[in-house]
């Protein structure tokens, strides 16, 4: 069973473009998607920050800019 939000989640294509990141897809998108914090937020009707990872941690925006 696959997460119902893979067509709209901006992180899902990232996970599939790089094999080193596919562990996220295997663990969350195609696995325990009920535990994905992004899915929980989306189901609550809130806008999901793009840097929020499925495990609830966020990419630091400061680290994304050089």
């Amino acid at each position: 069973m696959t997460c119902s939000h893979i067509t709209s989640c901006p992180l899902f294509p990232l996970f599939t473009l790089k094999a080193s990141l596919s562990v996220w897809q295997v663990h969350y998108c195609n696995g325990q998607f009920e535990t994905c914090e992004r899915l929980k937020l989306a189901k609550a009707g809130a806008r999901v920050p793009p840097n929020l990872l499925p495990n609830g941690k966020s990419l630091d925006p400061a680290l994304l800019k050089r």
Partner: protein
Amino acid sequence: MTSYWPFWATAPALAALTVGYWILLRRPLGVSGVLARFSRVREELEVDRGFEAMEADPAALEAAMAAMTAEAFGMAPEEEPSSMEGPALPTAPSSMFEAATAPGSAPVDSPVFEEPRGRACASTPALGEHAVFLVALVAGGLLAALLRGTFGVTAGMGQGFARLVANGPAGLAALAGGGVLVGFGTALCGGCTAGHGLTGCGRLMPGSLLSTIVFFGAAVGVSFLLAGLA
């Protein structure tokens, strides 16, 4: 009283608007969600900045993702990008994030992946774009009124409203209370007549069909009630 369009013209016009909106912008048409964004401006601006940060530097994004992957799953982070496994990025897009989120982009390395049905929606636009949308809504109504020659500034809602509800401050208070109820209702059911009635019903979504039945049914019922009281 303004004459309405015949039903056989209104339905195709609304359908063309709804479908055209999706074709041009890759987003479902809705209004209440746009309004709601301006009730939480600070959070929305923070999310917009997050999107900008994700698109700014693909190398930094890749490094940050690798580090978070190692932290989350206990894997050793890749030391050199050239040694990373995986397919090459598609050409043309200027950033990894843009390539990944471009509408129609398909995964290239997913052995257990099921092909998604339909194409992905475009991402939520920046707050400024939605501000333009709301201004255009008001400007469009103003333009229509000016072209018809029916524009006018008035503090009243007409004799019918005054007879059935109230006039003066009491009438304004009733309008404000009605507005609060409309806002509460749209937030509760996650949409309005545009989002549920046009977009949701057009996609045969059960929640939208039920919401539309309820609020249109309520509108028809109240109309008959007011007509009986008049």
